């Protein structure tokens, strides 16, 4: 069966056992990348010719924004797979990605506002980029809340997955907002094609920070998903065997 590997990916037990091993190298990798990116960027990278030291917030702000956008796709695609194949694990991942993305989006908005005051001359402006980023925060928070209002978990998952899928249109709009409209936010400094307009001694720590944020997102997603697995699969035998002290039924099952 060609689809067998795919269905195995949907098994919460398989994920729980595998992710245990992933965590042993993902945690140190995340710490090393973030520490390197932050210390290099905040302490050792040269100052900017025009902005001076205030530009350094880019090392915290821009990777958070990038991963908040990428994380939205992770959440929406997980939701879509959950809807189509009715698999448990992707729906758990979708639910787990929402709070992580919300925190990253909030971090982006807060650091952007702190940078905006000295640079633009205002904490907040109703700029296209700012508005759509705020909508992204509301989408993430909406999915977190929507997941908790339904009495039935199945209905909650379906509603969240639909909202996540409909919201995907916001991601390219955020990405292109600075090119499509007259906006206060500067265009992208790092381009997929062509030369980046950020000097290499600033670019390298920035790229390391981006990688660090991706690892941090994966780490948080795995930890949240593991928690969700234990909550949702609490009645299965393997969870009871795993946590015999936490469930009454578990003790009798292991006898």
């Amino acid at each position, binding site marked *: 069966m060609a*689809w067998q590997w795919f269905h195995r990916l949907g098994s919460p037990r398989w994920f729980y056992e595998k992710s245990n091993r992933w965590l042993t190298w993902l945690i140190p990798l995340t710490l090393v990348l973030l520490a390197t990116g932050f210390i290099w960027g905040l302490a050792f990278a*040269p*100052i*900017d*010719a*025009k*902005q001076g030291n205030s*530009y350094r917030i*880019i090392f915290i702000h821009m990777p958070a924004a990038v991963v908040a956008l990428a994380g939205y796709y992770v959440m929406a695609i997980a939701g*879509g797979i959950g*809807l*189509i*194949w009715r698999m448990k694990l992707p729906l758990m991942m979708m639910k787990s990605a929402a709070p992580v993305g919300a925190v990253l989006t909030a971090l982006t908005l807060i650091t952007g506002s702190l940078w905006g005051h*000295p*640079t*633009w*001359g*205002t904490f907040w*402006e*109703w*700029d*296209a980029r700012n*508005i759509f980023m705020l909508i992204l925060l509301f989408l993430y928070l909406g999915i977190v809340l929507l997941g908790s209002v339904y009495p039935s978990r199945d209905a909650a998952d379906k509603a969240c997955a*639909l909202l996540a*899928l*409909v919201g*995907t*249109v*916001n991601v390219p*709009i955020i990405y292109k907002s600075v*090119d*499509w*409209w*007259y*906006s*206060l936010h*500067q*265009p*992208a*400094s790092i381009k997929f094609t062509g030369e980046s*307009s*950020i*000097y290499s*001694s*600033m670019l390298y720590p920035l790229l390391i920070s981006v990688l660090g944020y991706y690892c941090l997102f994966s780490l948080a997603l795995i930890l949240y998903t593991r928690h969700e697995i234990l909550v949702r699969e609490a009645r299965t035998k393997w969870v009871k065997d795993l946590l015999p002290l936490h469930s009454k039924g578990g003790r009798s099952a292991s006898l």
Partner: protein
Amino acid sequence: MHPVRKQRLFIVLAIVALSSLAIGLLVYALSENINLFYPPAKFSANEVPRDVRVRAGGCVEPGSVVRESDSLQVSFWLVDGSGRLKVSYDGILPDLFAEGEAAVVNGAWEHDDVFYADQVLAKHDENYMPPEVAEAMNNGEKHQATCEEAKYGS
């Protein structure tokens, strides 16, 4: 693939495509309102309403900033590829405001063709470089070039 799953796949894809289309059209229709500011070309073409609060954005023309000696009053020209706009402002300019840099001003365009701003915001460009590099690249000329290629609304 199981036919039921295939059907659900198409439904999911249709939801994404149709909602994207709907929201895309909505955003496209609201495009004018999403623009943060009018470029100087629109002022030169007389397409901007007078005496109402609007924002203008463009490049501060090098050599055009005139400061009063006894007050905070300042005036400058905003330019882009095909238009010029005279701006008058009474207040403290943001640190990054400079000739040859982009700026966004908030205020009203009066009948005397002067834009009376009550807020000036500095628009930073996407270039980041250390001071030594900026000097080596001959900053003055580069700013001039930034101004010349300042075309908003691509």
